[in-house]
């Protein structure tokens, strides 16, 4: 990401004590990734060792150094979703998007991730597409949503 953009985000949080997580969240949201160059520059601006920033970016599951697709698909695999058929939903997502768990489609349109609970446990299973969550899913419903999202009538 351009240095100016990173500077802007870091400056925005300059008066906060617990700023680094927020900075990483915002840089990733804008750049769809946290690559080594961005992390190094964040470390430099904050005056902390690069190793620390790199450690954070790899420890927390919300952060990734791989470039994410335009739509981040997060399939919930919490216990309630698991009991109510998350496995089939995940299988359908993988095969229809033609992507492995944790990976991005070739055209960078979708990234598929697993999360442990989106917190909508009495209307499981759930999948989120960026900030929109879909609940009470069945195989048919998820296929319908994917048809809408991909524009592929299959």
């Amino acid at each position: 990401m351009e240095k100016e953009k990173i500077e802007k985000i870091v400056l925005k949080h300059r008066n906060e004590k617990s700023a680094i997580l927020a900075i990483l969240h915002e840089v990733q949201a804008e750049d769809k990734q946290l690559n080594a160059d961005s992390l190094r520059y964040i470390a430099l601006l904050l005056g902390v060792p690069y190793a620390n920033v790199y450690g954070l970016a790899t420890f927390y599951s919300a952060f990734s150094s791989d470039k994410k697709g335009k739509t981040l698909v997060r399939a919930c695999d919490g216990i309630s979703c698991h009991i109510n058929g998350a496995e089939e939903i995940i299988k359908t997502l993988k095969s229809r998007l033609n992507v492995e768990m944790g990976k991005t489609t070739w055209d960078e349109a979708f990234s598929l991730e697993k999360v442990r609970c989106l917190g909508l446990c009495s209307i499981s299973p759930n999948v989120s597409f960026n900030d929109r969550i879909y609940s009470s899913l069945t195989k048919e419903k998820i296929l319908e949503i994917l048809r809408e999202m991909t524009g592929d009538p299959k």
Partner: protein
Amino acid sequence: MKIKNIKDLGRAKNAGMKSLFPKIPQIRISMSTCGLSLGADRLFQKIIQETEKKGIKISLHPIGCSGCCNLEPLAMVRLPGKPALLYTQMTLEKAERIIRDIQKKKITKKGLFCIIGGDLVSGKPDPELNDIPDYKDIYPFKGQQRILLGNCGIIDPLSVTEYVAMEGYTALHKALYQMRPQEVIKEVVESGLRGRGGAWFPTGFKWDMARKSSGDEKFVICNADEGDPGAYKDRTIMEGNPFKLFEGVVLAGYAIGSHQGIIYLREEYHHTFEFLNSAIEIAKGYGLLGKNILGSGFNFSLNIVRGGGSYVCGEETALMDSLEGEVGDPRLRPPFPIEKGLWERPTIVNNVETLSNVPLIILNGGKWYTNIGTEKAKGTKILSVVGKVKRPGLYEVPLGTNLKHVIFEMAGGPFNGKSIRAVQVGSPFGTFIPSDKLDITLDPETLREIGSMIGSGVIVVLDQDSCIVDILHHLLTFFVEESCGKCIPCREGVSRMEELMEEIYNGRAGMKDLDILNELGETARDFSLCALGGGAPAPILNGIKDFRKDFESHIKTGKCFGVS
């Protein structure tokens, strides 16, 4: 408008009452994360369009979730002078019908679920509604004691005045003007309130120690890293009644002598993050956060920090590491956070549900609170009943409520004529209780006797089609992913357990492997650094004992027990 004194509070209350009981027809739509995921935003837009098209003036507000997400989207509808009515599983068609009827000044009977009457949003009884049950007489609300959730799904969660109309901020006013911090703590101690995040530590005791800790800078951390899969009570409180939580946080700050609070929110709650930020700005605007709160001279700032999607950061010392910009590694205790917490300053970490109890305790007195619950366990607990039951959802019940009653009566028991196999109570660390042992009361002591806990209140119900080995393996994959990797018993031990469980599930293990699984479990349980590695083995160890047939079936045939 700033609320600076008791008169302003009275004015806000009047404004809130007007907003709650408008002179024109009223529609309220539940717009929490759960409502939105089922299309509440489209519903809201549709209502705006329809009423504008027809030229009908209505009072339209969003509300939070009442805990029964499976009935979402909900609509609360009220004609002037009539009781409020609740409609469930709303569709655009249902909304059109209701609006048509509003135009005719008529009550829509079709699809009407219940009357929201009683002490909440009452109106004059209506003979036309004689055959419609009151919410107190119909499940999922029947049998609940909703001291925390009561206003969720009734008030507009971003309306300070509506919250004030429901006695909000009366406790904070009372504390700031009439009570010394020690007196606040005394009430909390007397109430017997304990930590609702799972640790069950006496809240008043923690506050008292933090108050006595020396240092001019202290922190109040609200733990909103609701990580237990199956739990969503904190989200429901935060999205349904955020000012109650803020009031509790400020009361905690006043009690221990802190001027800074942080809500550590889990990463997965995207909507909640935006929502809480708006709520904080609104509270600041009213002078309920920031400088000179309620005109009392007391200052308290509150901000939200989003986590990074790590379960272990729900553990208080790992949480503080995370706030300090480190990876979330649990620290050795002592020193305890009340002496050396965040940035080595005295700190209290309390759960969302715990803090939300505090305004009630200050308003009504600690003694009042002791009337709820059992002799030893005081107050209510929000249970999150999920899995194979007819009515999954949140149930706020007094501690000491019978588990079987909650599952079979309140949540409706299993569906499709199936039978219940096992129930996990408390958290992912809770043991699976076989179906013939469910006739117990929900309080920490009783649960401890059977190796379980009340935890964060998750109740996972499995029916006859569920395989215990599969569920336990699934649990272990969760623990392996979430282990921070700092100590060996958890990092290596729990990983080996997961591998073994996979072998067992696939029929590639022998009966001797159960002994190894046991030994690994006992080692991780006894020697892990924090509660993650220490707690992970419990459901497995108990599972081997209570559901041996499931394990044997997988080992010998590679198939689930009961499947031929």
